[in-house]
């Protein structure tokens, strides 16, 4: 088995299965609903959602890599977005400075969470659940106190360009780019590449995975596991904040409800993509593909006018299947028979 060619091994990975399902699904949708190819009203919103939720998935993936979870991913997104909103609305900061401030806030709340987990040894589920409740109270309170109508609505220059523009507004020599691709994909691709590089090429990434796969072995190998736990949660908080800010730019203002929909999706994407709940293995591309699959299904159902209850039932079923697949993969992995067993994460 170990000697199987790389191509065969890759064909058996969750990523290839996801790509195959997505391709078939898209082809079926195009045949049954040609309006699926509508650039401005179907593809662009779909790609925007994929971009935002891929970052949400990465936020969860970074903590899954150490075998933890982040139940507060939505509230951390709301917190980071709120700080950006305040910096635009009350401090009149330019776009980049406001986004950076929001990311720092997300990083700080993530670092605090990681520090509590590392110091107390309490399960990450409990700590992030508590953090989620704390932020659930704090965020709306701050909005009520500092804004009228509980929303920060000031948009700095470039805000709409980032959130609501497509390559159609990028013109060269009389020709403009496609309206179906939002400009937001650019920063998201950069983030995907950076996270991929972190896990694939850096010592920190490998140490995070080692901490996730066996914390005792990691400690005995001289890895400062407590610091790696803080690092993973800091990254998670930063990415959650980025997702919140991107969502705010796409809908037009900063409100306390940002992040409400993040938690379920944050698990679905990484797990469908092959990331192990138990830690030690991650996949950036898999996370992207997992998110893409769920959102393509959702968009397809929307085009057929299916109600929200059915959408939610389907999302729950997908998560259940993904979790079962995760368990099967884990068992296979422990028997040394997973198709990914000889590969490094991407």
């Amino acid at each position, binding site marked *: 088995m170990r000697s199987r060619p790389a191509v065969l091994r890759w064909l058996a990975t969750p990523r290839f299965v996801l790509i195959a399902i997505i391709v078939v699904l898209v082809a079926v949708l195009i045949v049954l609903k040609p309006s699926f190819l509508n650039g401005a009203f179907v593809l662009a919103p779909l790609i925007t959602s994929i971009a935002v939720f891929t970052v949400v998935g990465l936020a969860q993936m970074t903590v899954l890599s150490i075998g933890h979870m982040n139940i507060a991913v939505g509230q951390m997104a709301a917190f980071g977005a709120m700080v950006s909103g305040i910096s635009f609305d009350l401090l009149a900061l330019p776009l980049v400075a406001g986004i950076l401030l929001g990311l720092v806030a997300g990083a700080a709340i993530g670092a605090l969470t990681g520090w509590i987990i590392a110091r107390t040894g309490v399960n990450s589920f409990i700590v992030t659940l508590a953090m989620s409740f704390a932020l659930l109270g704090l965020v709306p309170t701050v909005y009520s106190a500092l804004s009228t109508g509980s929303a920060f609505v000031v948009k700095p220059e470039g805000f709409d360009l980032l959130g609501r523009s497509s390559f159609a507004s990028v013109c060269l020599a009389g020709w403009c780019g*496609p309206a179906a691709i939002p400009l937001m994909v650019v920063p998201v691709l950069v983030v995907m*590449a950076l996270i991929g590089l972190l896990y694939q090429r850096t010592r920190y990434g490998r140490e995070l995975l080692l901490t996730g796969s066996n914390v005792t072995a990691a400690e005995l190998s001289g890895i400062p596991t407590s610091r790696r736990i803080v690092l993973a949660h800091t990254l998670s908080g930063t990415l959650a904040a980025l997702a919140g800010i991107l969502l705010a730019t796409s809908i*037009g203002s900063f*409100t306390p409800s940002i992040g409400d929909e993040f938690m379920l999706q944050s698990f679905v994407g990484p797990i469908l993509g092959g990331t192990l709940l138990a830690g030690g293995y991650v996949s950036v591309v898999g996370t992207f593909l997992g998110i893409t699959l769920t959102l393509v299904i959702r968009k397809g159902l929307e085009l057929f006018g299916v109600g929200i209850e059915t959408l939610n039932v389907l999302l729950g079923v997908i998560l259940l299947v993904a979790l079962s697949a995760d368990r099967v993969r884990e068992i296979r992995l422990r028997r040394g028979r997973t198709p990914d067993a000889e590969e490094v994460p991407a």
Partner: protein
Amino acid sequence: MTTDDDLMARTDGGSTMRRTTLPLAVTAITAAALLLSGCTPQASTGGGGEAAGLDTVKVALVPGGPHPYFQPWIAAADQAKTDFGLGDATFNETAGWDQTKENDVINSLVANGYNAFGVFGVSPTDINSTFQNLKQNGIATAALGSCPAGDTNDADFCLSTDTEAAAYKAAQATIEAMGGSGVLAHLTGVNVDSNTQRRIAGVKKAVEETNGAVTLLPDVTDIDTDITTAQKAVADLLASKGSEITGIVSTAYNPAVAAATAVKESGLPITLVAIDDDETILAAIEDGSVYATIAQNPTGQAYVGSYALAKLASKECTMSDPGAIIDSGSFVVTKENVASYDDERTAASEQLMKDFDADHLACS
């Protein structure tokens, strides 16, 4: 041991194939997206066009989510489709009180050929962005039941209850029934909704006019999500302050229904003025346990709104005053007129149609 060794194996070394997965995937996505969408010449932007018949118009009415208030929109949309010969009229309440989902619902309807939208925006601060996007693509838009926050309405028009005026009327009616003095409680909906802020302002204005004779308790907000939430909030309010409250004004639907039942069951001498014309409330007005209610005009919003949207989408007319904010009316219902108030409301809708034809629409 095998387990740990295997797990750790995935953290070192690696095949060439895996190292290239990410860039390959990125390239594939970009190429696929480009193939699906393609580039366009710089000048090719939409807009304009010849006038077409109303049968080319497909109207979509999109509330913020499921709520009893919007149920009359369904029948009104069907009626408008028949009466005006529209291509189609649909009602879609799957937004689930989430602005992103509402935008998704709207986008999918556009992709399915709907070209006129009556929307109750979930987030009054964001809905203008949605209207701008639709208008850029030549789609007729109306804010129905709730106008965008702030001073700007980017929809072609907003047809909604003047919520501040309705709340003011309701509070005035309550204070009058209380004998001009006492303690008043205000039950209302989502605090972040600008309409709620307007309702709060309307009630406050009526209370201020009593020069201190009426004391207003802190507003009870965010209890309109469902009837259970409202029932709990009303029960808590009556348990803690029931003995001192002399009047309750509810400017949201679920708290009004909950308060009507709770006040009747408690037997407390509290004057209640509700909102909307739910059967429970109308029955309570008839038996005297509720003093009055302020009926709104959702049927008129949907029916007249669909008419105006069809005229705009067919390019037959334009708005004389783009972004105009038009009051769909509110009606005080007491024991005296409980049997006849609907005639008043129907007359108001007919007058709205005439106003659109005469003033709001400029037709070729």
